[in-house]
């Protein structure tokens, strides 16, 4: 029943057994926090402090604390919002789309990637809420009669679609992630020695026992969640792109935006997964589970999506020229050669040129090079959103209202602060939750560990594995 492919690389190295997987993943959950983790958490908490201070300034003194002006009334906030939402998309792509495509390499990275999704969406949600200026009235975006009169929200507005898309995306991702965690919490519960840990993980595990009937239903539920999360993740960034595409601002009013944004989201998300996983596999000694094969697979996705993004940049330029609309043409010439040329060319370099280095197998399989390029992609994708948003706004139809945007220290603080929020959440997750999906790695162990699964010869006495092939569907 076992088939060891001569071509495919093993996804779990080091000749692991089921028990080794449990040990390796539970190790950091059960051990005392290590010093590198504690230092990282301290740094993250410092930036969380920066976030809290910047939010306090924004709320107490108002949006005037930001560098916005009458011409550029969307800038860093929406840039950061789109950037964070985009990062989140890789988690859903790994957990849902790759599940539907039966990609086994997703098993060891899906947990952390989904956690990243959830934390990234939390960070993203901060920006539109803060930009409201009066976040305590945030419930006005819900379909409630306005000021309790009878005027409702406007369902024709893409900004309202965003409310529904982001909240659905967040809650469905959270449920999907938590459902995946339940069997692993049960594993930690059954190993726990301390009474507090046992009780805490018992509560978290929802009384999971792993009976065959539960597993059967569980797999069905996971498959359906994957099936509905796939169009969901595509819809989310489509709707985010419509915030721009349905307006009449030159540079925004383009039909290419939805696929271009979705590709960009996956591109930036995979870069962030790589950034995080390269650190995690090192700090938590998980190199046998997150192998070079995993890194290479992700790098291949980065080349594909990075190239789609590159083609989209060129297409936008072509269409601007071909449309014959002078405002449209000016918007694009201004992007590349106007006062924000440096942002445009940073974007082009980081997003279009650097990922092409992954055509070389040596670079694709180099951890250091991958880490550096993943940072470049993260930066490039931030600039992409900045370029789209700020350069399209700052020189509009009336030259008398042209203006430049420069961020204030509070703008920087809120942005850097969300990085602090993100890493605080991620570090807490990495310490107290199983960072690799144990049960899924166990599922693929036999077929993908490269070595025939070893068991004592006496337990196999009566039969060879060949005489019950009918089980293998």
């Amino acid at each position, binding site marked *: 029943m076992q088939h060891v492919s001569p071509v495919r690389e093993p996804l779990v190295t080091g000749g692991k057994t089921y028990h080794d997987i449990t040990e390796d993943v539970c190790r950091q959950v059960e051990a005392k926090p290590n010093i590198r983790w504690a230092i990282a958490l301290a740094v993250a908490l410092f930036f969380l402090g920066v976030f809290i201070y910047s939010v306090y300034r924004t709320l107490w003194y108002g949006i005037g604390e930001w560098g916005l002006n009458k011409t550029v009334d969307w800038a860093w906030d929406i840039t950061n919002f789109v950037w964070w939402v985009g990062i989140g998309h890789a988690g859903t792509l790994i957990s849902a789309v790759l599940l539907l495509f039966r990609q086994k390499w997703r098993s060891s990275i899906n947990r952390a990637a989904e956690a990243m999704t959830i934390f990234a969406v939390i960070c993203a949600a901060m920006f539109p809420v803060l930009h409201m200026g009066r976040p305590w009235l945030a419930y006005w975006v819900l379909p409630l009669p306005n000021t309790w009169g009878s005027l409702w929200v406007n369902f024709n507005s893409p900004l309202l679609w965003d409310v529904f898309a982001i909240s659905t995306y967040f*809650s469905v991702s959270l449920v999907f992630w938590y459902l995946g965690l339940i069997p692993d919490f049960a*594993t930690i519960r059954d190993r726990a020695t301390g009474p507090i840990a046992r009780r805490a993980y018992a509560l978290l595990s929802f009384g999971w026992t792993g009976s065959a009937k539960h597993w059967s239903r569980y797999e069905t539920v996971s498959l359906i969640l994957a099936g509905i999360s796939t169009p*969901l993740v595509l819809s989310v960034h489509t709707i985010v792109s419509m915030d721009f595409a349905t307006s009449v601002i030159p540079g925004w009013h383009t039909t290419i935006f939805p696929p271009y944004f979705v590709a960009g989201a996956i591109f930036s998300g995979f870069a962030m997964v790589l950034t995080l996983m390269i650190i995690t596999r090192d700090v938590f000694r998980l190199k046998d589970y997150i192998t070079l094969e995993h890194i290479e697979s992700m790098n291949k996705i980065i080349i594909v999506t990075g190239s789609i993004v590159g083609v989209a940049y060129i297409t936008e330029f072509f269409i601007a020229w071909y449309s014959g609309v002078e405002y449209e043409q000016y918007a694009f010439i201004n992007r590349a050669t106007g006062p924000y040329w440096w942002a445009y060319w940073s974007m082009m370099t980081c997003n279009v040129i650097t990922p092409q280095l992954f055509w070389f197998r040596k670079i694709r399989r180099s951890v250091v090079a991958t880490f550096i390029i993943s940072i470049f992609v993260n930066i490039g994708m931030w600039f992409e959103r900045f370029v789209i948003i700020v350069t399209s706004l700052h020189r509009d139809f009336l030259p008398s209202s042209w203006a430049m945007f420069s961020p204030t220290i509070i703008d920087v603080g809120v942005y850097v602060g969300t990085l602090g929020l993100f890493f605080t959440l991620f570090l807490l997750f990495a310490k107290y939750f199983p960072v690799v999906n144990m049960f899924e790695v166990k599922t693929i162990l036999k077929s993908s560990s490269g070595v025939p699964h070893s068991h004592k010869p006496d337990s196999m006495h009566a039969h060879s594995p060949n005489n019950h092939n009918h089980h293998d569907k």
Partner: protein
Amino acid sequence: MTNKKYILGVYDDEDVLLHAIDKIRAAGTKITTVFSPYPVHGIDDALGIERTKLPIAAFLYGCCGLAFALWMQIYMLGFDWPMIIGGKPHIALPAFIPVSFELTVLFTAHGMVITFFIISGLYPRIKVPVMDVRSTDDKFIMAIEVQEGKTDIKKLDTLLRDNGAIEVNEKEVAK
């Protein structure tokens, strides 16, 4: 209050387990359930577990979500407070697609998962009736309920061991 008694066959390989399930069921023994650290493919057929009807439930929840979303948008913008925007239709169905889609997904996902928790009896609790703690680590536990006076424990022990069980244990569970 009586206690239920189970015989637990411990296996350490899924292929041996699947083979054993066939043999033991063929011998006329009823297997209560099997606990495994991960979903074993083919175990549903081997144990005769019926396919769950959760997909049907999911579909119905999705229909509810879609119906609710359409009703909400059509009622609010079409009837309760029509917004006059450039003479455009109040019930602009293309513009209602995104919210309708999102609510369909929202209802499907949450409805299905909540139903799954309810029918499987999963909820946060401190005391968990675990038969053998190794079943969430690396062992496959086959549980067979002992019927007082009917089950021949010795024979069952031999049957399990002959079919690859590495251990056979007894466990009493408070009813």
